[in-house]
């Protein structure tokens, strides 16, 4: 049955490049506007999935419905889907303003309106002062921002951004993140990124893709499960014994130390949820005489990602026995069912 409200519906999608399976029977359904993260290791199939949704690649097996159309790249989707591809480059011998103006003219908008919109889009990514420059002289970061700017031209209903903040300096990355947040109010924005801490603050839903398979998808709290990560800055370094005492707390899953920095994964599944777990942790630290100077929520998504992709296990298996000693970067795991996380 077709859900007319579905913005993106993927069913049993598979794609091969020769013998290599790039996408393996993926099902994915996105019904709401907002920002969705697509994460996975290098070569997991994120860009291939983007290319299939955008209609760059032919669908070999399975179905994709984009904004109610069952053919990605169909005429009815023209100007309703915007894409910032990862590896595309702009023409080198034409000014970025002219290129943007041409793209907007393809949407049927020209003249003064188009000029204003192009300037506004470039301004929103901090390129308003580069209008007359050729794409050939833009830095990598500027090129990325230009890619974002062309994706937000007009009023697309589905926006695919492949690594939009990769290579950007912190200020520009923040500007682009704010932009994506705003776009999520009026469109479905799917963002692929390796910066999980950044994504965690940005997205409403996440999908994890590993070796072409979608191993998890849904609201971020659902995917990260009950595990919540916190970063603490202490007044002094704590000993291995003290570290063990923290780990012995019922709702502490893993704990690792790097100098006076402590990273703790808490189990928020108890009756009072996260409050109870934090209460336990802080109580123990006060008992040990090391009240935290600073406490902030860390990359829970990263923990979930490592768990789902199995990368933490691989790293642990590759470690030599001496590397698994607690010092100098101490890490202790709960005896059962806990994961290491020293490969951040």
């Amino acid at each position, binding site marked *: 049955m077709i859900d007319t409200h579905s913005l993106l519906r993927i069913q049993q999608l598979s794609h091969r490049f020769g013998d290599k399976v790039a996408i393996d029977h993926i099902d994915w359904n996105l019904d709401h506007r907002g920002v969705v993260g697509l994460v996975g290791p290098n070569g997991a199939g994120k860009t291939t999935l983007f290319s299939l949704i955008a209609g760059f690649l*032919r669908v070999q097996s399975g179905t994709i419905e984009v904004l109610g159309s069952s053919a990605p790249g169909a005429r009815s989707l023209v100007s309703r889907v915007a894409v910032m591809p990862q590896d595309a480059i702009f*023409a080198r011998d*034409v000014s970025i303003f002219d290129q943007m103006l*041409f*793209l907007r003219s393809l949407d049927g908008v020209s003249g003064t309106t188009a000029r204003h919109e192009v300037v506004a889009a470039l301004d929103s990514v901090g390129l308003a002062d580069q209008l007359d420059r050729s794409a050939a002289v833009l830095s990598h970061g500027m090129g990325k921002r230009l890619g974002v700017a062309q994706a937000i031209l007009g009023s697309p209903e589905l926006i695919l951004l492949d690594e939009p903040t990769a290579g950007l300096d912190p200020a520009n990355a923040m500007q682009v993140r704010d932009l994506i947040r705003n776009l999520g109010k009026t469109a479905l924005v799917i963002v692929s990124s390796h910066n999980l801490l950044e994504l965690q603050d940005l997205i409403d839903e996440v999908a994890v893709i590993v070796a072409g398979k979608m191993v998890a998808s849904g609201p971020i709290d659902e995917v990260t499960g009950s595990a919540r990560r916190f970063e603490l800055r202490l007044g002094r370094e704590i000993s291995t014994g003290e570290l063990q005492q923290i780990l012995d707390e019922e709702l502490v899953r893993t704990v690792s130390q790097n100098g006076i920095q402590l990273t703790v994964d808490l189990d928020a599944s108890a009756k009072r949820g996260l409050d109870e777990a934090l209460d336990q942790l802080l109580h123990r630290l006060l008992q040990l005489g090391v009240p935290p100077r600073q406490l902030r929520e860390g990359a829970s998504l990263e923990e979930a990602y490592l768990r789902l992709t199995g990368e933490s296990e691989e790293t642990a298996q590759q470690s030599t026995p001496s590397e698994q000693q607690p010092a100098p970067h101490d890490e202790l795991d709960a005896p059962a069912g806990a994961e290491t996380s020293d490969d951040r």
Partner: protein
Amino acid sequence: MNGGLQILLHARNSLSHSLRSGSGVAFIVLTVMVGLGLASLVFMPIETEMTTAEEFKKNAAQAVGYFLSVATLQPGEFNTFADRMGSGDLVELAMWGRYLVLDHPVLLSLTVILLGLVLPILLQLGSFASIAGDVQHHSIRYLLPRTTRASLLLGRLLGALILSWTVIACLQGAIVMYLGIVLPLDGWSALIAWGFQTLGALMVLTVPYVALGVLCSTIFRAPMVALMGSVGFTLAVPLIAFSSRQAWEPLGKLLYLLPWGYSHQLLSPDGHVVWKAALYCLGHGLIFTVIALLRLRRADL
């Protein structure tokens, strides 16, 4: 947005991009240089007074006659030269030669005949990067969300055609001006009338070869490979057809894979033959365009 308007936008963009890109400028410069070089070669005997106009026309008539007899020789049609003479075919050829050499400005006729032989190669320079250039650098991915593949291809084809027609028209204009001012063997009116007629023939001939370049541009992802493919095919067809028909005559029909087999008819004295040849050229262009559309529609970009 209206598909037709998008095609025009792509054509305009492609045209302005060609004037700034290396391949576009190379096409313009080479076509003008080769065209003027060929014209200079034709004009030289009279310009340098190596021969008189009358003698030149006599020799030109022989050369054109030979060209036409080779161009019109159908595989298996005649066993001997006597057979051909007996058929009255040579009388028609003689009239055709007279039409090109005596009835119209001979220098322009010869230049256009030579241009018709080299343009198929040169035209590939103006169209080989139409699609492949964007595919290679993935910049086509910025366009596809805003346009259809068909609009993109037809727009690029139209852009390449307009560029080629403009270059050929400028070249032809320069040759006619030069002939009218420097070598006034014929009157201005004859020159201008024949100039327009032959320009039309060259413009029609442009269509299938530009379409071939665009087709190769959709088949090969790297522009240089597309160029090699289109130039190679353009050259290989007559070479293979002429050499293989000695072994097995039906192979001579390979010549018709491209307009090589009938393009000379665009200069025929018979209007019906000219129109038929023009329609064949447009048909050839249409076939290449449809194949390119099908190819691009199914391509992973």
